[in-house]
């Protein structure tokens, strides 16, 4: 979930070009061949904006479909970030489409009341309304205190409804889709959308269902945190790179899309076995402690690019973790130890209290197996604590990382305020952004 755009630009640029081409596609169809009689500058401009806005909204489901190859060059978090802001842009295009017609051509778009308006105009108006609700309920989900899982289901339902109504609106109006070959192209475009939605909602859950896992161990860790161990059932499991993550479904069918993202915390060298280290934070994570060995689980992964395996030439690594942000970094350390990696490593690990320092004992153990230095930073240190104290500020990081080695690669995982302040501190000291990698435990 990180990799800067810069270090994979040639690859990423092609996906960006493909995306823009897909958005532009309906407009290019409009421009080709015989066109219906012009309806005036404002009228035709508004029509084209409507098509462009719908193309953006339709493609939203492709962005979040988690296609591994397409998301890898960017990182999943940035894809979600893009999903969020392009939705605002697409919504503005659709609003502009409506406002130009409402203001300039009120007679043509007819009455507002669904009782007297033609059905396809009502379909268009409902779609506009739904798009508005989608954008507002997503940007301000937390302000409206919408619970994540419920929000997510409604988000999917409303999005599909809004796109279907928009397509009905276009078919009903019918000005631009009349020519048979245009109808065919438009139909193919719609089919692409149906395929992606079908893949995400049916084909992928089906594939997951056929590769189940069983919980083999549930272990209490320090600080209201649990480690689950899963083993594949009837298949060989998945390989992953240390630091990657997967979407995990527990006590729920993959069709219900009730999954949550978690980093692998175990060693990637330990084939087959998957470990997740999960902190009790909300409705779902609070139930982890009640999971019993033998329960079923489904794992959609691996995803993400937050991994030292993408930097085989780095002379050394610095890991900076806060709290449960240690999970992916633990996977990296365990993997490097199992591989006998000789490179120098530095871990800076911020926590509130000494008692809650996750994996404390095992980190001591890893120190013997790796060229690893560790600096613990505590917010509420016990009396006579010899180490660093406070938050991971510029000053604390200067003490924890006295020398900035050129070429070393930095992995940062923790709460947003922490990663922001670490990024600022490292930038001040001249570490290029292309060598700092982040994992945020929140999808934009």
């Amino acid at each position: 979930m990180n990799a800067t755009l810069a270090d994979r630009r040639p690859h990423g640029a092609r996906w960006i070009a493909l995306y823009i081409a897909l958005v532009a596609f309906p407009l290019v169809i409009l421009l080709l061949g015989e066109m219906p009689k012009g309806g005036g500058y404002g009228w035709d401009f508004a029509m084209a904006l409507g098509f462009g806005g719908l193309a953006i909204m339709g493609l939203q489901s492709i962005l979040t479909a988690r296609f591994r190859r397409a998301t890898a060059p960017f990182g999943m978090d940035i894809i979600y970030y893009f999903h969020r802001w392009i939705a605002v842009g697409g919504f503005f295009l659709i609003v502009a489409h409506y406002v130009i017609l409402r203001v300039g051509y009120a007679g043509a778009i007819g009455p507002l009341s669904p009782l007297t308006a033609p059905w396809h105009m009502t379909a268009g108006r409902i779609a506009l309304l739904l798009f508005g609700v989608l954008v507002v309920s997503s940007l301000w989900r937390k302000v409206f205190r919408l619970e994540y899982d419920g929000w997510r289901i409604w988000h999917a339902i409303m999005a599909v409804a809004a796109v279907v109504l928009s397509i009905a609106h276009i078919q009903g109006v019918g000005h631009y889709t009349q020519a048979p070959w245009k109808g065919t192209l438009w139909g193919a475009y719609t089919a692409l959308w149906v395929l992606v939605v079908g893949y995400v909602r049916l084909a992928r859950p089906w594939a997951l269902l056929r590769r189940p896992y069983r919980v083999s161990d549930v272990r209490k860790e320090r600080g209201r945190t649990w480690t689950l161990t899963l083993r594949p059932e009837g298949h060989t499991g998945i390989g992953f790179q240390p630091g990657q993550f997967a979407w995990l479904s527990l006590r729920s069918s993959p069709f219900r899309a009730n999954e949550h993202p978690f980093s692998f915390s175990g060693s990637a060298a330990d084939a087959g076995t998957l470990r997740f280290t999960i902190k009790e934070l909300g409705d779902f994570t609070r139930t982890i402690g009640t999971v019993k060995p033998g329960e079923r689980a489904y794992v959609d992964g691996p995803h993400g690019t937050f991994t030292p395996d993408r930097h085989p030439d780095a002379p050394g690594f610095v890991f900076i973790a806060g709290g449960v942000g240690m999970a992916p970094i633990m996977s990296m350390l365990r993997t490097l130890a199992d591989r006998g990696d000789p490179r120098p490593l530095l871990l800076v690990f911020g926590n509130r209290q000494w008692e809650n320092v996750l994996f404390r004992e095992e980190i001591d153990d890893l120190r013997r197996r790796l060229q690893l230095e560790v600096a613990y930073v505590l917010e509420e240190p016990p009396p006579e604590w010899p180490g660093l104290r406070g938050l991971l500020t510029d000053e604390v990081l200067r003490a924890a990382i006295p020398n900035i080695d050129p070429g070393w690669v930095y992995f940062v995982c923790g709460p947003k305020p922490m990663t922001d302040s670490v990024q600022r501190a490292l930038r001040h000291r001249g570490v290029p952004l292309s060598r700092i990698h982040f994992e945020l435990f929140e999808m934009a």
Partner: protein
Amino acid sequence: MRERIARAICMLTIGVVVALSLLFASVHNEPPTENAPLPPEKGASVAGVAASAVAAPVDLAKGKSVYAAQKCSSCHSIAGDGNPRYPLDSVGSHLNREDLLAWTTGTGAAADILPPGIVRRKQRYRSLPQDNLDALVSYLSTLKASK
């Protein structure tokens, strides 16, 4: 940093859509060539209507109200009011009463030329009371190109 690039790509995408839309609108509305009729100016044909009114005023008002009640303006415009794609500003000059009725109700030659979806919609007007249709056609025939 990555956020900034993502935002830039957002802007770029929206920019491409707006640019293509502007292109579409301008390709579509090229300035008329020498012998093509000029599009009616807003309000211009209203004057023409007044000057060439031949039908009884009562009929005219009734025709207008039928036109409004049937929402012809969702596809047509008169004097710039309504859907600009199919202006009716000068139909009275080039169609006689019979043709006006055929085009209004999607029958005769109109049935072959118009797309099927539109024919279906227009044929519904056949069930209007005869005097409403008469009034509508009378109104349409007053719509003449202004000199």
